[in-house]
């Protein structure tokens, strides 16, 4: 027991330091330190980009919106009091910006999808799932990707967001509720409804043969 104690402390140190280090970066960025903000951007750029990309299904839009979100966050950084984590606060900015963007350009959706990485075809679960459940077993991954994105774009923005955050990005109901500023019950009901809709939209691809 005695020997284990220091080891436990060492394991917990990085996790305990992470929020402190983040708050330190935020405080420095609030004072105008762009190097500190650059570090914050690097920390969250992939997650913010991915969320925006999955919401828009368009790489160029995602690039612009992700950059704009970080810029807006920097401009509003002085108003950040630390009531929530910086990550949640940043996410809220990106999500609101994306939803506003999508509302303004309604019915003008143009997909510009990113390529699937080379691991896709080597993912046995995914390959098995596709070959077992799609009516056309020769359907290419690219075609399935397009169908999936088109189906997602048919959902309303709040429903799409819940699916993206939960099923694609793996966030918890609690985190999503905090990001979307609603209660967990709303998140669950939106998720259920969104999945139902997706299932009916993708029925040909999900039906076991």
């Amino acid at each position, binding site marked *: 027991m005695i020997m284990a104690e220091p080891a436990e402390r060492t394991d917990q140190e990085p996790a305990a330091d992470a929020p402190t280090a983040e708050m330190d970066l935020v405080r420095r960025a609030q004072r105008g330190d*762009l190097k500190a903000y650059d570090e914050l951007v690097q920390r969250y*750029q992939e997650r913010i980009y991915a969320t925006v990309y999955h919401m828009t299904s368009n790489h160029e839009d995602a690039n612009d919106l992700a950059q704009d979100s970080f810029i807006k966050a920097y401009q509003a950084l002085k108003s950040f009091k630390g009531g929530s984590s910086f990550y949640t606060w940043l996410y809220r900015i990106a999500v609101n910006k994306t939803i506003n963007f999508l509302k303004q350009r309604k019915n003008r959706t143009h997909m510009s999808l990113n*390529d*699937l990485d080379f691991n*896709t075809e080597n993912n046995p679960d*995914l390959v098995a799932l596709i070959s077992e459940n799609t009516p056309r077993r020769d359907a290419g991954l690219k075609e399935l990707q397009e169908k999936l994105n088109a189906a997602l774009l048919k959902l309303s923005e709040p429903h799409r967001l819940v699916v993206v955050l939960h099923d694609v990005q793996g966030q918890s109901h609690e985190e999503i509720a905090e990001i979307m500023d609603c209660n967990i019950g709303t998140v669950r009901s939106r998720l259920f409804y969104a999945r139902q809709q997706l*299932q009916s939209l993708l029925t040909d691809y999900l039906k076991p043969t």
Partner: protein
Amino acid sequence: MNENEQDFGTLQQFLKLKRHEMPPPGYFNNFSGEVIARIRDGGKAGEFSAEAPWLLKLLQLFEFKPAFAGAFASALFLLLVFGFVFADRPESSPQPLLQASVAQSNSFAASTPVALAQPADTTGITVTTNPATSLQPVASLFNSQNPFAQQVSFTTTGN
């Protein structure tokens, strides 16, 4: 809820395909650099948007609703055309009305041969605006009758 989650199991696995959609290689290498550069350059743009937020909103509206931009441009063009049309029109159009007022003032002048109710001479200066007492006709000054010109004469009397 577990039952529902089981029902959607296939869909959830299918959705995992989206995790494999990746931006072009090296995309994030310069992402933060671009953000920081835009923040640095954005100082002036930020000031501009703070000074004229309505203009920024208008431009955003144009970007998202091209029909609105077209309507705005058409309205601006029509305004310009109307401006040119009205600027080129001769000023003779209100003449009948002015002529009527001139005729009226002339008849009024003719009916009052002497200055109307002159104030008591307290300062030693007598002012009269009676056109009938004018020595020089108005027409001789401007080659045409100016309805707005009115003769004024000052008479000083010594103390």
